[in-house]
C-alpha cells in the first residue's frame, strides 16, 4: 500500500509537467473561476476556455483516453487522472463548457453516428470550437426520463420535431445537441423513442435561459417548433433511442460522479470558525462546532480515499463500478449542511450574500447551489436506487407503466 506512481505513471507525469511548464503558468493564488461566471456568459472566460482546450487538443491531452487523431493519445484512465492532477496546479481556464459534449454527447455520436458525422464533429468538439448540449429532460419527466413527449414525425427523408426540453445545461452557448424524441406513442414508453443530433441554430429552436434559485442561469428551457432534421442525423435505429440514451447516461455518471461542490469544505469552515466569536468564546473552541467539523471531515476524507481506491483499480486495468454513485450523494448533502451550519455561526450576518457577507458569501453561495447539486445528474433518491439495485442487487422498483402503451399511461393531469 503506497501512494507512489508506478515507473510508467511517473514517466507520464514528468512528460505532462514539462508540457504544462512550456504551455501554462503555475498557479499562484487560488483562482476560483467560475461555473457561475460561465453560466452567466462571461465572454472572456469562454474565449479563454476555448483557447486552452485547443492547446490541449493539439498535444493529445484534451481527451487522453481517446485514440490518436480524435484528440487523444489512446491513454489509460490513470493517465487522464494524472493529467488532471498536474493541470490543477496551473493557472488555466476551466474546461467546464466542454464537459457535456465531450463527456456524453460525442461518445454517443462515436458509438452510433456514421463515419461522415464522426469526421465532421469529433475534432471540432475536442478542440473546443463547437459546444454540445444534451436534450433529454422534459418538464413532466423529472427522474422518469423516458416519460418524454417531444415528438418527431417522419415525412420522406426528413423528421419534424415539436415539443420542449428543460434543464439543458449550457444550451445558450451550444452549437449542437443530441435530442431524444418520441417517434411512436402506441408502444410502451421505452420502445417508442429515437435519438437525433440537431443544430441548435436551426430555425424553430427557441432557447430560453432559466433563472435558478441561486440567481445563475446555467440551465435552459428550449422549445422546438417544426424543427426539420434529416434522417442522416439519426443516432441508432428508430425506436432504439432508449438504448442510445443509456450509453449517454452511463458516460454522464462517470462525468458527474466525481462530485463538484465548489471546493467548499472543512478547511473553509475552520477558517470561519477561527474568526468568529460565539456566546461561549471562539467558535473553533466550541464543542458543537468541533463535532460538526469532525463529522464532515470524516466524510470528505472517506471520499478522498475512496477515490484513491478507485484510482488503484483503474491503474490495475479494472473498470470503476457503480460505486462512483456515492460521491455525489456525499458531496451534495455535505455542501448543503455544512453551508447552512456556517451561516448559523455567522449569526444575523448569515443572511447577507455576495461581497458583503462573511467570507465574501462563500457559504451562502454553497447553500444556494446545493439543492441543484442534489438534483442534477440524478437525484439523491435515484442514486440511492442505483446503489441498492446495481451494487447491492436489490429488486428494481415496481413499474406500473411497464408494457403499457405510452399514450395509455395515466399522467395525473
Amino acid at each position, binding site marked *: *500500500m503506497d501512494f507512489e506512481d508506478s515507473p510508467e505513471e511517473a514517466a507520464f507525469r514528468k512528460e505532462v509537467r514539462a508540457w504544462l511548464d512550456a504551455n501554462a503558468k503555475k498557479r499562484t493564488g487560488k483562482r476560483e473561476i467560475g461555473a457561475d461566471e460561465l453560466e452567466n456568459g462571461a465572454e472572456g472566460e469562454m474565449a479563454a476556455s476555448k483557447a486552452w482546450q485547443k492547446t490541449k487538443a493539439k498535444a493529445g491531452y484534451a481527451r487522453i483516453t481517446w485514440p490518436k487523431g480524435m484528440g487523444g493519445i489512446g491513454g489509460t484512465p490513470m493517465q487522464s487522472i494524472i493529467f488532471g492532477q498536474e493541470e490543477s496546479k496551473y493557472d488555466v481556464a476551466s474546461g467546464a463548457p466542454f464537459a457535456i459534449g465531450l463527456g456524453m454527447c460525442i461518445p454517443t455520436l462515436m458509438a452510433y453516428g456514421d463515419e461522415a458525422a464522426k469526421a465532421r464533429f469529433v475534432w471540432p468538439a475536442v478542440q473546443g470550437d463547437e459546444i454540445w448540449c444534451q436534450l433529454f429532460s422534459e418538464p413532466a419527466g423529472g427522474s422518469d426520463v423516458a416519460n418524454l413527449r417531444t415528438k418527431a414525425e417522419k415525412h420522406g427523408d426528413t423528421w419534424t420535431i415539436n415539443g420542449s426540453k428543460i434543464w439543458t445545461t449550457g444550451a445558450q452557448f451550444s452549437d449542437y445537441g443530441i435530442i431524444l424524441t418520441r417517434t411512436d406513442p402506441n408502444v410502451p414508453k421505452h420502445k417508442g423513442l429515437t435519438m437525433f443530433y440537431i443544430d441548435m441554430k436551426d430555425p424553430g429552436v427557441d432557447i430560453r435561459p432559466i433563472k435558478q434559485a441561486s440567481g445563475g442561469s446555467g440551465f435552459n428551457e428550449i422549445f422546438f417548433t417544426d424543427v426539420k432534421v434529416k434522417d442522416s442525423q439519426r443516432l441508432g435505429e428508430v425506436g432504439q433511442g432508449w438504448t442510445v440514451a443509456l450509453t449517454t447516461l452511463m458516460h454522464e455518471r462517470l462525468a458527474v460522479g466525481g462530485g463538484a461542490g465548489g471546493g467548499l469544505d472543512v478547511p473553509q469552515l475552520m477558517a470561519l470558525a477561527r474568526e468568529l466569536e460565539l456566546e461561549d468564546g471562539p467558535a473553533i473552541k466550541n464543542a458543537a462546532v468541533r*463535532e460538526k467539523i469532525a463529522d464532515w471531515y*470524516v466524510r470528505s476524507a472517506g471520499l478522498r*480515499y*475512496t477515490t484513491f481506491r478507485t484510482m*488503484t483499480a483503474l491503474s490495475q486495468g479494472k473498470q470503476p463500478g457503480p460505486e462512483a454513485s456515492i460521491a455525489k450523494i456525499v458531496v451534495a448533502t455535505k455542501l448543503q449542511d455544512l453551508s447552512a451550519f456556517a451561516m448559523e455561526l455567522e449569526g444575523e450576518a448569515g443572511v447577507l450574500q455576495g461581497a458583503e457577507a462573511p467570507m465574501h458569501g462563500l457559504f451562502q453561495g454553497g447553500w444556494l447551489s446545493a439543492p441543484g447539486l442534489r438534483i442534477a445528474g440524478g437525484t439523491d433518491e435515484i442514486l*440511492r436506487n442505483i446503489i*441498492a439495485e446495481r451494487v447491492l442487487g436489490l429488486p428494481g422498483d*415496481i413499474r406500473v407503466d411497464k408494457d403499457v402503451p405510452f399514450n395509455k399511461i395515466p399522467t395525473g393531469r
Partner: protein
Amino acid sequence: MNFDFSDDQKMLKDQARKFLSEKCTTKTVRAVFEGDAHHDAALWKQVAEMGWTGTAIPEEFGGLGLGYLELCVIAEELGRALAPVPFSSTVYLFAEALLIAGTDEQKKRLLPKVASGEIVGTFARAEGPGAVLPKNVRATLKGGKLNGKKIAVIDGPIADYAVVLVRGSDEPGERGLQLALVDLKGPGVKRTTCDTLDASRGHSDIVFENASAEPLGKLGEGWSDASRVLDRAAILLAFEQVGGADVCLALAKDYALNRYAFGRPIASFQAIKHKLADMYVNNELARSNAYYGAWALSTGARELPLAAAAARVSATQAFDYAAKENIQTHGGIGFTWAMDCHFYYKRAKETGLVLGPQRAWKDKLVTELETSNA
C-alpha cells in the same frame, strides 16, 4: 498509486475468513453470551496457534514480524466474526504499549508470551464516568507500589497483565503521568467483573492496593504514550468495526430479499433500499478511512494521529448505523434474543466506547486539523 492490500495480504484475509467461518460461528458467540465464561478459550488458543497474536510483533521478540497491514486484514475478519477472544486488548493495546514504551528487557520478557498466546494483556485508563483527562488520573505508582481504581477494563476478568495509566509523581497534569506494568495475578489486585452490554467481552473494575508494578516508559510521558497506544489501537479496531458493519449490511440485505410483505420482498421498497444504500455509503467511507489509517500505521506517517481519529470516528459511525438499521430492517424478529442482530448492535457500542467515545475522538481530530493546517 496502490491504495489496496497486496495479493499476499488478501490471501491471508481469505484464510482468516475461512478459518473463522468454521471455528467462530454465531453459535460460538452465543455460547459466550449465554455462558459464564468471558471468552472462548479454545478459539483463543487456535488464534494464537495460527500466529495471529504475533503478526506485527518483531521476530526478535518472538513474533512473526509480518507487519501492520497483515494485522489489519486479520482484525477485519475477527470483527466480522464477532470473535469472543481478548485479541484487541492483548494485541492492539497491551502489545503496542510495550512496543511503544517498553525497555528491551520488558519487551523480551513479555512480547514472546503475547505472540504465543500464553498471556492475555489489557490496558486501563478510565477511573470513572466522563472524560479521561490528565487531572482526573488519581491512581498512583510510588516505590513500585500501585494504588487506585480503574473501571470497565476490557478483558479484565481474564487478563494476566495490565498497562495502567497512573500518576508517578506529585507533579500536576500530564507532567506527573506515567504508564505502569502490573501482574494482575499478584497480591493487592482485586477484580470485580462488570455487568456489561456486550457479554462476549468481559470487563472488570480493578482495585489496586499496594500491588507490585513497574514503570513502563518515562515519567511525564504517560499521557502521550497512552495517546500513541490508543491511536494504533483505534486503527486496528476500525478494521474490526468495518468488518462488523459489512456483516450487518449483508444480514439486512439477505433478510430483506427473503422477507415478503404486501405481496413483495421488502427489499423492493424504497424505504428499505435507501436505508441499505446509506449503510453501504457509510461502510465504504469507513473502509477508505481505515485503509488510510492502515497506511499511516504501517509507514509510521506523521499523519497517524489524524488518520487514527478519522478511522475511529468513521468506523464507529458506520458500525453503529449498520447495526441499528439491521435490526430495524428485520422488524420485530430482529429485536429478539433468538436472532443474532443484537450481538452486532452490542458489539458496535462496545467497540465504539472502549477506546473512548466519538466525542473525544472528534475533539482530537479537530485538534490535529488545527495543528496540521496552521
